[in-house]
C-alpha cells in the first residue's frame, strides 16, 4: 500500500506546473536562449559540455559549478536579509503559478478568483526585488533597484489593465471557467490586450529591449550584483521563473489554455506547447534588439503602451456589451 494517495494537487505542485516544471524550464530556457541567440548571430553557442546533444547539459553544469562556488557575504550588509531576500524573491516569483490551472485538475490551489490573485502576486514581485537590492547595500544594486522601480512604473499599469481587460471580457477569474469560455482564443477576441500584455511581459521579465535594471555594460548585473553561488541561482534564476509564470498566465488567458485537449495528460502537453510558443520570441529578443534608455522605456510605457491597454479595456467592454461572450 502507498502511504498516501497521490492527489492531483500534489502532482501539480511537484511536477507541472510546480517544482519540476519550473526547474525544467529554468534549464531548458537558459540553454535555448544561449543556443538560439548564438544561431542567429552565426555562432555555435554552448558546445563544451555534451557536444553530441548541442551542449544541453551546459546550464546543468553551470548550476553545479555555482552550487560549489564560494558564497561571499559582504560584511557591511544585514546578513539575515542578505541571505533571505533571494529566497523570498524566488518564491514570490514562483507563487503566481500556484493559482493557475495548467490542465483539467492540474492546479495547486483552486480558488474561484485564482487568476486575479495570480496577477496581484505577480505584480508584487518588484517589491521583493527592490528589497533585495537594498539589503545588498551596493552602488550597482542601488542603481539597478532605482531602474527596476522606474521600469515597473512603466509596465505595471499596462500589464494590469491588459489582464483586467481579459478578466472583464470573460466575466470571471476562475482558472477553469476562463479556459472553458474560450471557444475562440482570447488573442483573437482582444488582440489589443494581447499586444499590451506581451510587451508588458517583456518589460516585467526585463528581456532585451527593456533589459535596463541589469544592463551589464552599465551596472554589472543590477540588483543581482553581489550574489554568488546558490543565492545567484535563486536571485537571477528568478527572472526565468517570472517568465515561466507569465507564459503560463498568457497561455491560459490568451491562447485557450489546454484546449482542445480534455484529459489531464494531453492537456498538460498542450499547455507546455503553448507556453513554449509564448516564450520563444522572448528568448530570441536578445539577438534582435539593442537596449532602450530608461527615459525611452518610461516614455513608451506611459504613452503608447498605456493608450494601448486602455483601448484594450474599452474594446473588452464593447465586446461584452455586444454579447460576444
Amino acid at each position, binding site marked *: 500500500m502507498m502511504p498516501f494517495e497521490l492527489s492531483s494537487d500534489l502532482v501539480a505542485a511537484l511536477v507541472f506546473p510546480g517544482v519540476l516544471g519550473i526547474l525544467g524550464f529554468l534549464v531548458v530556457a537558459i540553454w535555448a536562449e544561449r543556443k*538560439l541567440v548564438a*544561431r*542567429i*548571430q*552565426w555562432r555555435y553557442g554552448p558546445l563544451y559540455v555534451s557536444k553530441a546533444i548541442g551542449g544541453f547539459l551546459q546550464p546543468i553544469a553551470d548550476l553545479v559549478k555555482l552550487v560549489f562556488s564560494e558564497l561571499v557575504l559582504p560584511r557591511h550588509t544585514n546578513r539575515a536579509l542578505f541571505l533571505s531576500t533571494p529566497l523570498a524573491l524566488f518564491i514570490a516569483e514562483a507563487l503566481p503559478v500556484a493559482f493557475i490551472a495548467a490542465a483539467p485538475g492540474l492546479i495547486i490551489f483552486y480558488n474561484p478568483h485564482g487568476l486575479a490573485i495570480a496577477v496581484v502576486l505577480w505584480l508584487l514581485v518588484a517589491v521583493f526585488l527592490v528589497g533585495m537590492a537594498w539589503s545588498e547595500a551596493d552602488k550597482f544594486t542601488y542603481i539597478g533597484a532605482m531602474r527596476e522601480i522606474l521600469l515597473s512604473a512603466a509596465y505595471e499599469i499596462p500589464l494590469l489593465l491588459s489582464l483586467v481587460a481579459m478578466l472583464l471580457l470573460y466575466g470571471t477569474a476562475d482558472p477553469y471557467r476562463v479556459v472553458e469560455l474560450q471557444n475562440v482564443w482570447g488573442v483573437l477576441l482582444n488582440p489589443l490586450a494581447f499586444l499590451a500584455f506581451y510587451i508588458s511581459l517583456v518589460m516585467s521579465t526585463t528581456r532585451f529591449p527593456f533589459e535596463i535594471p541589469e544592463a551589464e555594460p552599465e551596472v554589472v548585473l543590477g540588483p543581482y550584483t553581489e550574489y554568488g553561488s546558490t543565492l545567484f541561482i535563486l536571485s537571477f534564476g528568478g527572472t526565468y521563473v517570472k517568465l515561466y509564470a507569465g507564459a503560463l498566465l498568457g497561455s491560459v488567458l490568451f491562447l485557450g489554455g489546454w484546449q482542445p485537449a480534455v484529459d489531464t495528460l494531453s492537456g498538460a502537453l498542450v499547455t507546455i506547447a503553448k507556453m513554449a510558443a509564448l516564450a520563444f*520570441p522572448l528568448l*530570441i529578443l536578445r*539577438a*534582435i*534588439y539593442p537596449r532602450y534608455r530608461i527615459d525611452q522605456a518610461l516614455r513608451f510605457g506611459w504613452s503608447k503602451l498605456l493608450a494601448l491597454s486602455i483601448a484594450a479595456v474599452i474594446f473588452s467592454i464593447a465586446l461584452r456589451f455586444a454579447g460576444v461572450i
Partner: protein
Amino acid sequence: MSIHVKLFLTALKNLAERQWTVRWPEERRDYSPAVRGFIVNDRAVCISCQLCEAVCPAKAIKFHLEQDGKRYPGIDWGRCILCGYCVDACPTGSLRHTPQVEITWRSLSTYKFPREMDPDAVSVEAGGRSLL
C-alpha cells in the same frame, strides 16, 4: 511596426540557415545601405580642420601635405575600426561612409595612409572589385 517584423524575420532567417560562411568572393553577404563602411573624403569640401584626427580613438588618421598646399586626412586601414567618429565630427560633411565593408589590399604599402582617399581616385582592392 514594420521594422520590428523585419527584425524578427531576419532573426528567423538566420536561425534557419545551416551554412554560416559564404564562398567569398563569388558570394557576398547582404549589408544594410546604412552600414559603416570604407570612409572617403571629398577634397573640395575638406577644410583641413583636423578634428577627425583628434577624435579618432584608434589614432588611425594622420594628415599629410598634398601638392595643392592643403593637408588632407589619410587613414591607416590596419588601425581603423570603422567606428564613424570622424564622420560624425566632420564639420563640413566631407568625410562619409560608403557601403563598402570588404576592405582588403594586396600589399602592405598601399593600405597604410593611401594618398588617394578622395572619391575620384580611390581604389580598394576588395576581391578585384573597385569601390566607385
